[in-house]
């Protein structure tokens, strides 16, 4: 073992990248540095890491031709013009959806929506790791089918047995929702 360090070269090399990036705790950093001071092989390895990352960082991207970015913006503009405008979730969309689903009576629909809302909340709490804004494709598909996932606030405010007023006004909600089924945008 070169350098007579307490730590072997293999262990040190495992840490060279983290050392280069300043991610080691003080004790580990000092251990690595003590080893590097006496080990030519590991110092060469550290040099290669530094060189590789420096060169990779400097690798250029060929400059696009003149007018490229103007065309780029225009192309994006053209393409999004064909896409329905994005909208935040709104209670009217849930209400419209509830009014439009064939075969669903208001109370079962509200019950289903409330249960689904609770399940979603429980699921979110249980699976929460890092905040994620873009859900997996499967979740998008489920939410799209049910059009409820984004309207928990509304669902939480609906009292299943007592909020008769909402039930009585479903016709009005239907009118507000129009014929279009709400989309998840």
């Amino acid at each position: 073992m070169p350098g007579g360090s307490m730590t072997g070269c293999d262990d040190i090399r495992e840490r060279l990248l983290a050392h280069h990036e300043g991610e080691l705790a003080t004790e580990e950093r000092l251990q690595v540095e003590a080893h590097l001071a006496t080990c030519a092989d590991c110092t060469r390895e550290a040099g290669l890491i530094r060189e590789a990352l420096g060169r990779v960082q400097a690798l250029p991207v060929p400059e696009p031709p003149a007018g490229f970015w103007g065309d780029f913006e225009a192309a994006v503009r053209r393409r999004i013009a064909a896409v329905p405008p994005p909208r935040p979730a709104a209670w009217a969309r849930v209400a419209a959806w509830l009014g439009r689903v064939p075969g669903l009576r208001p109370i079962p629909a509200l019950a289903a929506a409330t249960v689904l809302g609770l399940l979603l909340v429980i699921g979110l709490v249980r699976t929460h790791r890092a905040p994620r804004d873009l859900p997996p494709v499967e979740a998008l598909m489920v939410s799209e089918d049910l059009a409820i996932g984004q309207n928990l606030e509304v669902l939480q405010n609906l009292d299943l047995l007592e909020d008769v007023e909402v039930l009585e006004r479903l016709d009005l909600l239907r009118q507000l929702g129009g014929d279009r089924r709400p989309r998840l945008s």
Partner: protein
Amino acid sequence: MRQPDLEVIQRVLAGETAAFELLVRQYQQEIYRLAYRLTRNAEDAKDLSQEAFVAAYRSLGSFRGHSRFSTWLYRIAMNLCLNHLKSATRQDPSEVDGTLADQRADSLAALLTDERDRALAEAIETLPPQQKATLTLRVHQGLSHKEIAEVLDCSEGTAKANYFHAVRALQRKLQAF
């Protein structure tokens, strides 16, 4: 002074859809370069980065602002690029490591006068897509391992391991000189 992304997003969601162009203008070069570094093909990079903006526009209502908009946008762009790379591999796996990789590296190789740079560019082309993506996000976009994990939908440990293996492969390449 630039308007914060979240404010621009709120304007778009409130119906001022033209404000989305501010986001396009702000991030188009970054997203294009990201796509280019992964595909090494200017035409593919253009298509994929445009597609990323269209997909972001379509899903803008689901953006909650828990992460930076750029991280969210990277995630969309990365998914598109990785799917693109996977489908290219499915079409003809032999081409990715050989002819196709050489063709992709051509336009970049023309810019590289140093043979060590050229060797590194070739080595990056042969990395598995996840490692290549991790390397790009870390080295060029300056993302933390946590952010990379978020973008690539993997654990932080996996992101670190991918980065470690990618750098080791490049290190080996330089060592061979």
